[in-house]
Structure formats: structure tokens, C-alpha cells
């Protein structure tokens, strides 16, 4: 049988469409690429949740890995993520820093008292300016910042043990030779 263009064309079009649809199925439109990957952490200077503590500055996040976690007492997925953060707070390879977003001190304190406080330090962003500078669209969101102050990873949504093992753990393994 001789293959004529009229025979091949519909098949070829079907293959192309199928390919596009398969990509579409595996692509979550809610996950946006971060503009910060590989870029220095934007400068910020936030008051600490506990006024007695020093301010939380982006400049102080050099010389070691930092996990920067944007959360709020109003955020439901943060509660889901919280037990993992609690277990991570014992990890000595990085510092876990929280940014409490659009929250009141009373609510945040209550949340931490009930669920435990995994953070080495917490800054508050009431106006949401720093959170917008970070390109955050919803809480929770976590950034892995390396010892040079460069953003290495952004995890939108709650951290899970799976994401941790697949994406974060390899970065922390690099930490030795890189520093």
C-alpha cells in the first residue's frame, strides 16, 4: 500500500495532539516557576514576632543553609505541614526561619503554643510586602537558601516527606563540598 499524505496527515495530527494533551495532563497550572531560582534572596528586614527578639534580616541568612517558611495561623495547609516542620527543627544542617504572613501576634502565638514552635526565628509580614517580593502566591511556601544567600529551591504548598526526600535532601548533601 502506498502511503499518501491524506493517510499520514490525520495520524500525524493525532500524534501531535496526543503529545500536547499528555504534557497537559502532567502539568499543574497552579505551580508557577519562581523568578527567584538561582537568584539572591530579596533583601528584607522584618520585625520579629516576639518583639524582644532581633529583627529577621535577609543579610543574616548567609554562612549556612536556611529554610524560609511562609506561614500563617489562618492557613490550613500549614497545619498539615506542621508535624514535618517539627521533626525538621531538630536537623542541624540548616536553620528553619518562619515568616508569619498577614497574621496577628495573638493568633500566631496561640498557633505555636498548640502545635509547637519549630522555628529558630520568626519574622512577621503584616503588610505582605516581603512576601510579595518573594513572589509568594499562597501559604505555605518554603524556600531553600544556600550559604551564599542564593535561593536554590522553592516549594509552593505544604512540604511533604516525599518532596523533602526528592528535592531538598539532595541540596543539603551538596552543602559540604560547596561551602
Amino acid at each position, binding site marked *: 500500500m502506498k502511503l499518501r499524505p491524506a493517510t499520514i496527515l490525520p495520524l500525524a495530527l493525532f500524534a501531535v495532539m496526543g503529545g500536547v494533551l499528555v504534557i497537559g495532563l502532567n502539568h499543574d497550572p497552579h505551580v508557577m*516557576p519562581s523568578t527567584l531560582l538561582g537568584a539572591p534572596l530579596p533583601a528584607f528586614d522584618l520585625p520579629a514576632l516576639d518583639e524582644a527578639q532581633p529583627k529577621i534580616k535577609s543579610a543574616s541568612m548567609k554562612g549556612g543553609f536556611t529554610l524560609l517558611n511562609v506561614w500563617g495561623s489562618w492557613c490550613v495547609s500549614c497545619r498539615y505541614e506542621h508535624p514535618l516542620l517539627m521533626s525538621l527543627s531538630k536537623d542541624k544542617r540548616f536553620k528553619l526561619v518562619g515568616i508569619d504572613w498577614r497574621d496577628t501576634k495573638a493568633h500566631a502565638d496561640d498557633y505555636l503554643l498548640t502545635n509547637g514552635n519549630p522555628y529558630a526565628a520568626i519574622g512577621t509580614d503584616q503588610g*505582605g510586602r516581603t512576601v*510579595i517580593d518573594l*513572589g509568594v502566591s*499562597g501559604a505555605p511556601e518554603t524556600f531553600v537558601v544556600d550559604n551564599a544567600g542564593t535561593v536554590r529551591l522553592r516549594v509552593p504548598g505544604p512540604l511533604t516527606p516525599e518532596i523533602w526526600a526528592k528535592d531538598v535532601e539532595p541540596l543539603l548533601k551538596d552543602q559540604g563540598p560547596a561551602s
Partner: protein
Amino acid sequence: MSRIIFAIMLMLFSVGVAHAVLPSEMLTNPVQEARARAISSNLRCLVCQNQTIDDSSADLARDLRLIVRERIVAGDSDAQVMEYVVARYGNYVLLKPPFQMDTALLWLLPFAALILALAVTYATLRGRVVTDDADEPNDILKGD
């Protein structure tokens, strides 16, 4: 009766487009406010996806509206305000994506499809005329 119809018509047509901008957010300078509205209606609300920040009452959209106005008051051009937001959230926030390498397919595919369709139509019609002529020369034309 006509009064009732008039009242119903009035109700139907008085529904305007809902905007989320609150009076307290507005700039006092009407020219600047108009620019802010134009910019806002081209920026996607990141929480609601299919609304502009001008339409959305989400907190994040409100924060972005305020930032747009702040940049305008600070003397930024419209393009600079857009750049400010894109630097943080990427091209994703633009409701009209810019023409560049990774969006070339998006912009050019409709034209490619049109050209392909025209080519196929032309080839098909041309082929038909030739076979018609070969089968029964001039018969159809004579009949008319």
C-alpha cells in the same frame, strides 16, 4: 404595565461590571488612578487565576493593587510598574503573554493553522477542477 416593564429593564441593565477596587485604595489624581486601573486589569490575580487584580477581592490582589499605585506615585512608567510585578511573579501574571522564544508557538500556531488550512483548501479545489474536466469535458458548464 409599561412601568413594570420599564422597572424590569432598569434592573437588568443597571448591573455593571463589578470591580473590587475600594474607594480608600484609589489615588486622588484621576490620571494616575486611570493608569493604575489599566495596569491592574492586565495583571492576573494569583490566587483566583482567571480574574484580574482589578476584579478580585482577594487580599493578595489588594496588596498588588496598592503596590501598583505606590509605584505610579513614585514616578514609575507603566512599563516599569509591569516590570516590578513580573520580576516577582514572572510572566505568568501578565494576562497577555509577551512574544518571546517560549511563547512563539502560542502566538504563531493560529497563523500556521490558517496558512495550512488555506493550502489544503487550495490543493483540494485545484485537484477537483482537474478531475472534473477530465471526466466529462464541458458538460457541466453547458448545462448552465
